């Protein structure tokens, strides 16, 4: 469903992504790990369509479409969801209104009527339960005054509401206590289906105990330098990244 080929991207003339190749098929879970500053968030921003980044080379295909040719909102409507590393606060806009607007706008573009209030509310109830929010934040402003962990849970809640085809979770686990981590992982697992795929960006193998990846990739200095199964995450946890960097240099 996602084919990234030789992707190069830069910001303000600094090349951050230096030739990424990655293929994600429906039903798969990919983990991306890598040192700070290696370009993980950049990759997710580029995929989501943030226009500060300039793609200088390469291509990205998503469900047969040229993803790079689409506006951010069209990518979202096509099924790309990004759980932000740093979710943004929108004062005065209730969570519920935010989601209603997002869902109905996507429906409108597909020529559908707005979702009936009853259906919407029962969906809210169901999905909130999934991430252990139970309607707690419905009337609070989007992320405003939320704790770090609450923001992350809210991202997963939004993901559950929007039912994306491809979810990119950018360090959704950081800042979560162990119980919240289980809840979030549980939520992600329940949303898994043979039709959708997940890219999990993380620093900790801990999360991968709960969300079992099919592949683990190591991103270093703008390139995927190693790919393996879930045991690679364990190895990274033990040995750090230096040995991989060396391998990459020697290769």
């Amino acid at each position, binding site marked *: 469903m996602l084919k990234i080929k030789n992707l190069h991207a830069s910001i303000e003339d600094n090349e951050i992504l230096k030739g990424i190749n990655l293929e994600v098929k429906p039903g798969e879970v990919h983990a991306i790990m890598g040192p700070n500053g290696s370009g993980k968030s950049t990759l997710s921003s580029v995929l989501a369509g943030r226009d500060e980044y300039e793609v200088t080379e390469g291509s990205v295909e998503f469900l047969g479409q040229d993803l790079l040719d689409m506006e951010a909102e069209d990518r979202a409507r096509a099924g790309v969801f990004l759980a932000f590393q740093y979710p943004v606060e*929108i004062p005065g806009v209730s969570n519920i209104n935010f*989601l209603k607007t997002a869902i109905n706008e996507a429906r409108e573009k597909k020529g559908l009527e707005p979702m009936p209030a009853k259906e919407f509310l029962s969906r809210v109830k169901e999905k909130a339960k999934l991430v252990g929010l139970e309607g707690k934040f419905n009337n609070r402003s989007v992320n405003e005054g939320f704790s770090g962990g609450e923001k992350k849970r809210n991202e997963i809640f939004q993901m559950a509401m929007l039912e994306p085809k491809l979810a990119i979770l950018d360090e959704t686990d950081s800042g979560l206590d162990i119980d919240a981590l289980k809840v979030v992982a549980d939520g992600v697992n329940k949303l898994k289906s043979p039709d959708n795929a997940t890219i999990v960006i993380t620093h900790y193998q801990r999360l991968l105990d709960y969300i079992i990846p099919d592949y683990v990739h190591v991103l270093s200095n703008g390139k995927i330098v190693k790919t393996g199964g879930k045991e690679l995450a364990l190895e990274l946890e033990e040995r750090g990244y230096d040995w991989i960097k060396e391998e990459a240099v020697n290769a």
Partner: protein
Amino acid sequence: MASEEELLEEITNSEYKYGFVTNIESDKAPKGLSEDIVRFISAKKNEPEWLLEYRLKSLKIWQGMIEPEWAHLQYPKPDFQDLHYYSAPKPKKKLDSLDEVDPELIDTFNKLGISLEEQKRLTGVAVDVVMDSVSVKTTFKEKLGELGIIFCSFSEAVQEHPELVKKYLGTVVPSADNFYAALNSAVFTDGSFCYIPKGVRCPMELSTYFRINEAKTGQFERTLVIADEDSYVSYLEGCTAPMRDENQLHAAVVELIALDRAEIKYSTIQNWYPGSKEGKGGIYNFVTKRGLCMEDSKISWTQVETGSAVTWKYPGCILKGDRSVGEFYSVAVTSNHQQADTGSKMLHIGKNTKSTIISKGISAGQANNSYRGLVKINKHATNSRNFTQCDSLLMGNKCGAHTFPYIEIDNSSSKVEHEATTSKIGEDQIFYCKQRGMDEETAINLIVNGYCKEVLNQLPMEFAVEAQKLLEISLEGSVG
């Protein structure tokens, strides 16, 4: 300068003359402003002598005044001799039901999405429509009448309830208050009048829609709302104007009087033609709005303004009675070449008085938005409080926001808090919304609505919806 007495003398002794007697039947006064014009208006409206005197006195005061200059407003000064000060629309008969209203007018309202029929069907909104200068229609009057509530056009009040008008007119905004108030006091043609008797809670929102219709007619509305002891009223004022090229002057005066333990909520949606994108045309809006609060009373001003080329307006409260409360909630949007200099004045005179000012400015395009607030706490107004929050949101790089708070406290037991923020609409916020599938336009509307939430929440439900729509329309295409 002549004393008041001499002025009165001069006025009462001067010959009752019209420079254009033959035109008394005409629907329009000739251009220009003079004693003759004032007499013409007064005669046309069959006013009592005391009101004519009031007008003439105001005219004298106005003639002695100089049009003020505002540091942050730039516009060609209106030529006061090039305006018509009176005009009446074509259908002249008093109407009892909607069926009798000019179908064209109904059509216009339908276009604006504020059809009278709808209004009438809605949860009991009484509508008093002012088309140019003459009241065309008053609804729900009987229902209000049962409670002793008077809600009618100003001219009607002058005829039917002269004692109330005489007692309160000019007591909150005296003619000499400022240039535009003096002008209005001399030539006001119509407006609304409302009186809520003692202990009565007005069961419905009282609503007035204004519309400027005829070219080159300055409209000078006069509104007087009196809430007698222990009463309550919520009053809505909304206006729209069609596109036009020539600047139209609008100088209204609104006076609110809340007697002991009374409460007045006064909400405004102001949506006049702001001028073209290039800055041509648009309405000049110079309004004096003020409320007087007696003991334990409360007045709240809420306004959402998106219109006018130039806006100059400072709704305020005189907190005269002990423990009285004044509130001001405002959203002012300026885009393209619009200019706004608005704010609030809170005058604390009574003890333990409280005021709150929440002002949200939004500037887009090349617009300029200034907040000018005065909070004055008198020596005897002990233990008084003011809280002011003044936020500016900028969209793009060419617009500006300015804040000018003036604070004077003359006693040591009172406290004033002032908070001000200026922010740019965040790229991060917009991207976040887009990532959830929203268009840029939708994202901006959502963010702006959130930013204005505290103010929009003060509006009655239907009005809040309308206000949101207005914000959307006025910010269309302002970013990107």
